[in-house]
């Protein structure tokens, strides 16, 4: 009788997935699409690919980000993480780079094509900057690594795809689609239309392109994965790196305020908790809801909440808390209520929160207080971003009646011939799945009246 091999641990699974990606570059795969769930270490993979290309393969590697801020961040991480290797950050001539970035000794700032290194190198720039490179002014690259590739519309990928021999598209398929500000009706039926996220368009054109996935989320705990994976990633199974109960919230002081029930629920191991105010149609800005968000933050600090992760414990500070909203007006309503000592709480919209994380998150539910469910508010990507930024606990703050609203506004079924995806239905279904699971698992704390 032979002993059955033990299942690999999530950590081993995660590392093996990274090794497989790294091997594709040794094999010279012309294109790889790497799909990742939230918090699975996409940017870490980008770093590995870049460093391997430079130091092990002796290649020229271009790293593509979506914004300058992301380029600064990748540059910072590479230069600090690999202090013995040289990197270059390619930015606009008149762009003011952050002082901590300019101070990095192994990060060269290149502002013109002629400043770029000639031999093996890693050069980081945003997609827009890369699209202005003049052919012949820059030696061709061997490898192009695109971070947050699902944010890059295909027509912009088209402009940079020819700059390198191989391409690796790294991204999260569940997040907010690329922002295109103009009318796109003309290409609505085209699955490879210029507005489509480039990883999707690439697979439509070349079904044989190698597809890999990251199977483990390092950020999310398993309790959250149980909500997020079936709702937003039905075709991308993944698990959590941390074991059940390994990471969580503790409170040192008891509490009797209505919002304390939500904190107590989180302290008992619930990583997703809905705090529900009485139903009311409020429009975009809900003053009571904003007050409740601030009250929750204040109570977390007053009750001396701590987060633990394995053997480490850390008292919660303002900088460890994030608040994410659908609209800028909601962001401002919360910011103006935060007392000075809570100025480090990061309050942002879902679009701006992509790629960021905090131990504790509070979410202004996108459907809260609404009379209808528009495509914007139903967007699965938006809710997915909002509900997957936390390492420990997430409080979804909303008005009652979201499930009823969803049932009243079932999708119209206005699908497009030629496209398998129905974004509106997917969004609606994801919202309903999350709402039902929260109710079924008794994760909803109902507040009878305002608590502040």
């Amino acid at each position, binding site marked *: 009788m032979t002993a059955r091999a033990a299942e690999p641990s999530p950590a081993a699974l995660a590392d093996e997935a990274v090794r497989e990606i790294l091997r594709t570059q040794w094999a010279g795969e*012309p294109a790889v699409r790497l799909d990742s769930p939230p918090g699975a270490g996409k940017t870490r993979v980008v770093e590995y690919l870049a460093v391997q290309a430079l130091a092990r393969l002796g290649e020229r590697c271009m790293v593509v980000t979506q914004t300058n801020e992301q380029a600064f961040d990748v540059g910072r991480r590479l230069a600090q993480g690999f202090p013995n290797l040289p990197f270059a950050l390619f930015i606009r001539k008149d762009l003011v780079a952050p002082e901590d970035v300019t101070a990095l000794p192994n990060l060269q700032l290149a502002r013109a094509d002629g400043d770029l290194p000639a031999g093996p190198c890693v050069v980081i720039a945003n997609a827009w900057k890369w699209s202005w490179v003049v052919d012949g002014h820059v030696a061709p690259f061997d490898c192009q690594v695109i971070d947050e590739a699902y944010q890059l519309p295909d027509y912009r990928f088209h402009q940079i795809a020819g700059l390198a021999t191989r391409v690796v598209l790294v991204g999260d398929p569940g997040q907010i689609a690329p922002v295109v500000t*103009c009318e796109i009706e003309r290409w609505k039926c085209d699955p490879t239309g210029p507005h489509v996220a480039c990883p999707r368009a690439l697979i439509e054109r070349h079904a044989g392109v190698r597809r890999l996935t990251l199977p483990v989320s390092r950020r999310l705990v398993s309790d959250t994965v149980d909500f997020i994976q079936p709702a937003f990633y039905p075709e991308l199974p993944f698990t959590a790196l941390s074991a059940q109960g390994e990471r969580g919230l503790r409170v040192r002081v008891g509490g009797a305020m209505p919002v304390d029930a939500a904190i107590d629920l989180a302290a008992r191991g619930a990583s997703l908790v809905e705090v529900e105010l009485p139903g009311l149609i409020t429009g975009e800005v809900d003053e009571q809801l904003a007050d409740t968000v601030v009250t929750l933050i204040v109570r977390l600090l007053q009750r001396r909440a701590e987060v633990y992760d394995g053997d480490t414990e850390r008292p919660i500070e303002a900088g460890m808390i994030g608040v994410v909203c659908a609209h800028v007006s909601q962001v401002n309503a919360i910011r103006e209520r935060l007392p000075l000592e809570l100025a480090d709480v990061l309050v942002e919209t879902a679009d701006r929160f992509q790629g960021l994380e905090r131990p504790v998150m509070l979410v202004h539910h996108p459907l809260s207080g609404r009379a209808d469910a528009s495509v914007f508010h139903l967007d699965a990507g938006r809710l997915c971003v909002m509900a997957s930024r936390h390492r420990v606990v997430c409080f979804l703050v909303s008005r009652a009646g979201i499930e009823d609203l969803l049932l009243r506004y079932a999708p119209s079924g206005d699908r497009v011939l030629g496209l398998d995806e129905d974004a509106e239905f997917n969004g609606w279904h994801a919202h309903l799945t999350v709402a039902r699971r929260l109710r079924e698992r008794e994760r909803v704390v109902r507040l009878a009246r305002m608590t502040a």
Partner: protein
Amino acid sequence: MAGELDLVARLLAYEGGRAVSIATHRLMAIRPDALVLCPLAMAGEDTTVHIVAVGAIGRPPEIYCVADPRVRDEQYELFAWLGARIERHFETCRRAGEYPQIWVSSGAVADHLDTLADRQRYNRENAAVKRFGELLSYQTERYPVDGQQALITATGALRMHWATGQQPGEDEHLGTLLAWIEPPRNTNILDAVALAERVPMGVKTDPEFDRDVLEPRVAAYNQARRGGARAVELRQRAGLIQQALEPVVRSIYDGTQRAIRILSRMGLPELPALRNLEERERDEFESFMASRDAGYHLPLVDKPRPAAFKLTAREDAADNFEAAVLCGDGVGRARARLAGHTVYGQVENPRRTRLSPHRFRYRFDLVSRQRVLRVRRRDELASLGDPRLRVTVANVHREGAVTRISAIITHGQQAVGLPASGTTLELAKTVPDWDRLIRTRKQLRQRLVATPWTHDEQGTAPAVTRARRPPRDPLAEVEALR
């Protein structure tokens, strides 16, 4: 928040029983040689034109009607007739170095023309009809582009300038919109709107009219035609159909003309950027006609390269038009301020710091009380008063209702200078840049000269040429480099 401004305007209109002005400038051009075009389709036949009225601004229409547009030859005659007028108009505009502008009553008509242009430009049976489809494509391809001046809907133009007391969707009926803007005397506005609603103003006739009047006449005509009736009888029966349809199409034509009259006489100055928008339209028209002259076909589905050009142009147009309205129109600016797209505040603590013997850094704080602000650290903003002054946001600090934005001047230190303490300043992320599209197209032409395999639908991925044996643990090898 900006939506609330429009909501308040609608509530005021409802309360006052009259539309409320929501623009300080005229936001679109009115070409004196523009054509007013009013087609009516047959119900259930979305690619037909049963009757059409066409004419210049301020002039009576020419009308062409066919007895049954489902009869292909008759339909083609109408298209060829209309195509000849459009061709003449295009030629006149081209000779004058201008662009052709067509006015229709509403978005439904624009959509109908889009369908017609899409269908007929591939017509293989009739060259005149194909040409009609191609020419019409200029207007319909431009229509989705923000700030275009080629195809104007009367409802769209009026809605840019007035808010009514009805639902936004109801504003797409030209008759009700006109009733709100020029309400009849001694009549309750809601009664006037209800009356106006009964008159068709789009591209279809009224269902009751179809059932009781039109359908029997068309059926009688077809019966006579199939029965081999004499030409005189057929002409007479066709005449009865025209008699029924002509008042309907004339009413739409008159409504469209009235909308243009109202817009011409409202006495608002033109948006300063209209000059640039018209210049862009002239360039686009000349480019379109040059392509037709060269025999290029209009594609039904775009390949990646033309799609990239088109989407880039649309995005540029959207950005520029939004910025132009924000900079040039008072209400547009108020809307942007409420939505937080501009930062409006008072300058405090302007200072100059010496970085080296000949280098200085200019900074100031802008203190704003705006409820909604979209400004973040490291954003780049330009002054709406003088766009040469550009800053980078060094910090954003909110305390209660007050936001303090620390700004570093990046451009305009000499030309504009450090703003004085106490002055008010308004900053925005975008100001119009009318040369940007020229630069971008040049860059696209250069970048997209060869199609990469990733975007070549027929192409295959290149074969692996440089496969190397990977190390046993590539992850450990990279980690070892830390």
